[in-house]
């Protein structure tokens, strides 16, 4: 049977304007558990040498769900919101 599939980044819409930085990561607190890697729909986290690493281009790829902040028991991830009027636009929510 013909399958249906999708690519997350092709199905996300964004407004214009500078979001500013809205995720901060403290490697000193990270214990390399990798949960941020698993919960991220956009695949923005990876593990390198036992520490998480956030994609430098996260501002233009992040879905703003904040799952990385919620899952991190060590408090290594802090999430605020992109600047007002910028970032993801949900058209069909």
């Amino acid at each position, binding site marked *: *049977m*013909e*399958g*249906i*599939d*999708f690519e*997350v980044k092709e*199905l*996300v*819409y964004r*407004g214009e304007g500078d979001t500013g930085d809205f995720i901060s990561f403290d490697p000193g607190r990270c214990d390399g*558990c990798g*949960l941020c890697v*698993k*919960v*991220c*729909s956009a*695949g923005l986290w990876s593990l390198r040498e036992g520490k998480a690493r956030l994609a430098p281009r996260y501002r233009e790829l992040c*879905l*703003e*769900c*904040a*799952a990385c*902040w*919620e*899952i*991190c*028991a060590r*408090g290594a991830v802090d*999430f*605020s*919101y992109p*600047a*007002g*009027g910028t*970032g*993801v*636009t*949900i*058209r*069909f*929510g």
Partner: protein
Amino acid sequence: MESWDVVVVGAGPGGSYAAKTAAELGLKTLFLERGRYAGEKNSSGAGLGTRWWRDFPEIMGKLPYLSSYRRIDMIVIKVVDEENRLRLVQGTTGSDRDGSRWSGSLDKGMAGASIYRSDLDPLIADLAVSAGAELRTSTLACDVIMEKGTVRGVVTEKGERLRAEVVIAADGAMSTLARRSGMRGRWGGGCTLVPQIDFVCDEDKLDAVVGNAEWCWFGPFNGAYQVNFRESFHLGAGKWLRPDWDTRPPDMLRRVMEIPAFQKFCKVVEARPREYQAHLLPWLKKPPRTYTGGMMLVGDAGGFPCPLDGEGIWHACMSGKIAAETAAWAISRGDVSEKALAEYERRWKASPLGLEHSFGPEFVEIWDHSIFDPELMKRLIQLILELSEIHPFSVLFDWSDDHVSCLNRHLEHLFDLVPEFSEFGERYIKPLGAAVSPQVVKKALLQAKGKLPLLRLLPDQTYLRALELLNRRLGSRLKEAAGR
């Protein structure tokens, strides 16, 4: 510095409804939205139940004119087995003994309505503006003004300081204001992540195949919901963000999308994925502290979504309304301290919102140990299928053998399965017995009495008094039913 009676942060349904209520009560009200318009940032396409007609008729009356609206008359559960075969389709709509759940108009669905947040949120924000509240969009509140442990206003990212007698935080699951005021940090295991896909499709074909219904997919995977709109639908899944998280969120949806019945459905209605959305949804045994000096939390920020099904928009509007009413009451008394705002919790606990949350731990436990446990679901599906076979139509249409043998085989299998689930029932279903109202308990006992010839001679009151004395647990319920 600007000064307001009430500043509401967030123009989702909870924030806008709070702003509307506050303005209607004569309070000078400002509400802030970080998106360019209300609803720009929100992604939980809404299935609104019939209680909306009772509580928010001014919203429901306007929905049929919005572009994503679909009337909903029933919820259809699709049960899929281990081999991805569709095994059972079961509808639920509820009965309507006194006509209170809907009026019979074709615009009013017997089970509710579906509407996009991009339609619903601007509608409620407009009602607030019409009531006299001021809306500022593209405005992010990033801190609270704290004085002597009490919230006195908010600070925007541009550094504006907005003073308020009372702040209502409706800024979502990861509420900046709740965190900045020190009320709480992460939810720590009580919050789910919900990935969701919007599919666009052919409206007429969706009418023909789905009609006026929402769908749910149950199987040996995390349950998935399908909210159907006018010419589109959402497929969503979710589970609690805990250390045992093992899947990429998009793969939770792919798992449902590989079910042949779902694929065929998509083909027939010409569906294609149009938008991917992901959001946090607090799904808690009970809301944590919902107020502090000068500030109240509403909607997702307060942890209010339903502990049984995760629906949160009615809960947001209810808590928003109660928070605004409490703000008016507190301001009129000149006391917005933490002690005074404890009134908020008293009020929401006494409302239908509080009644639903009074069984929060029991509701959450059931889900946590069934639908979110794929191994158990494999066996639970067997039980669901066997129970459905006892349905008169199933017995009639079972053609695997002569009907007498069929019935006996099903009963035998059911009795095999029951012991396996007796612990589940004892642990997770039995505690819900306490949710049955004393009036219903009394009714059941009197009906049972009528069936026993010897007891029939006993006057009702004597019989109920005897039960009251003999069984302590039953006794307290009967006392309550009799108003003693």
